[in-house]
């Protein structure tokens, strides 16, 4: 986790898989702990009778905000210490119900070059134990070129016209 071997843009190839990340099975206790941490008490995450009878949902939902933390962890674990997760976006296309085990996957979809560092395009998602994809998304992670300067911090986004 700490001070991994330095890596650079040249170390990755299109099609490479990122290390996957598994969470769960996620119980009501996990969801309540997350609700407490973020101080949001939306009942569809812990109150089963309300969720089913009032909201008409089939069970307690695993929070979208919870899943987005997992996505950020997957990407930052991979990018550190030398890369920077510049962008990530995802859609919550399907609901995940309490009790599911979530596996986050990602792979290198493309590589592009900016003048001072490289950009790795990543496609990613979250599947449950039944293989159902719920959260497709993409990300852009910046890495320095080999033997070149480290990334700027705070991160400075490249000019779109200069990305090849």
């Amino acid at each position, binding site marked *: *986790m*700490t*001070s991994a071997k330095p890596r650079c843009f040249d170390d990755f190839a299109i099609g490479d898989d990122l290390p996957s990340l598994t*969470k769960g099975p996620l119980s009501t206790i*996990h969801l309540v*702990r*997350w609700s*407490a*941490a*973020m*101080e*949001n*008490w*939306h*009942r*569809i995450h812990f*109150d089963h009778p309300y969720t089913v009878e*009032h*909201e008409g949902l089939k069970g307690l939902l695993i*929070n*979208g*905000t*919870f899943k*987005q*933390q*997992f996505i*950020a*962890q997957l990407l*930052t*674990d991979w990018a*550190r*210490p030398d890369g*920077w*997760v*510049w*962008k*990530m*976006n*995802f*859609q*919550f296309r399907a609901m995940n119900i309490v009790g599911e085990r979530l596996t986050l996957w990602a792979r290198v979809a493309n590589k592009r070059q900016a003048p001072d560092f490289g950009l790795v395009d990543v496609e990613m998602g979250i599947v449950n134990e039944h293989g159902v994809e719920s*959260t497709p*998304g993409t990300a852009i992670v910046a890495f320095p070129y080999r033997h070149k300067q*480290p990334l700027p*911090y*705070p*991160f*400075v*986004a490249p000019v779109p016209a200069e990305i090849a």
Partner: protein
Amino acid sequence: MSKLELNSYIGLESEVVRSELPVEASIVRRFCQAVMDENPMYWTPNEDNRAYGGPVAPPLFPTFMFGRTFGSPDPIQLNAENPGYDGLNFSRVLPDIEPIRGYAMLNGGSEVDFFGYARHGEHVNRQARYSNIVERDTRKGRMVFVTTESDFRNPRNDLLLRVRTTLIWRPQ
């Protein structure tokens, strides 16, 4: 509701709001344990956070630094006898969209741009705007997609992250 009514909210921007509390180690600990990401860079000085000035909060932590402030009305107690209260308690720096008041809400997804971390001890400033509002017919009926864009900055006014979140509102 009319399209005109909804469109009147697009572009509406909040004031800059300062987090009531700075990034605190105890809150970071609870947050990291909840998301099961106990990376040492979030709680102790080490090689990985040296370039960022020491321990930092997880990248999305600033978005959760705007909870209910001391002394403000308590929605849980105010709704203690309301069996239909949904429990939603996200921080409202923008006015509610009146035509969809009372609708049920689901999270549709987000786009996030990251530029820096919030360090322990730092406050964070937030400014939000309604960037898009559209109505769509879906398999489950007519729904309203509201996209909010929020900027989070440190006390030096460095942009830490920009988050565009789409919430989906549907009649109950």
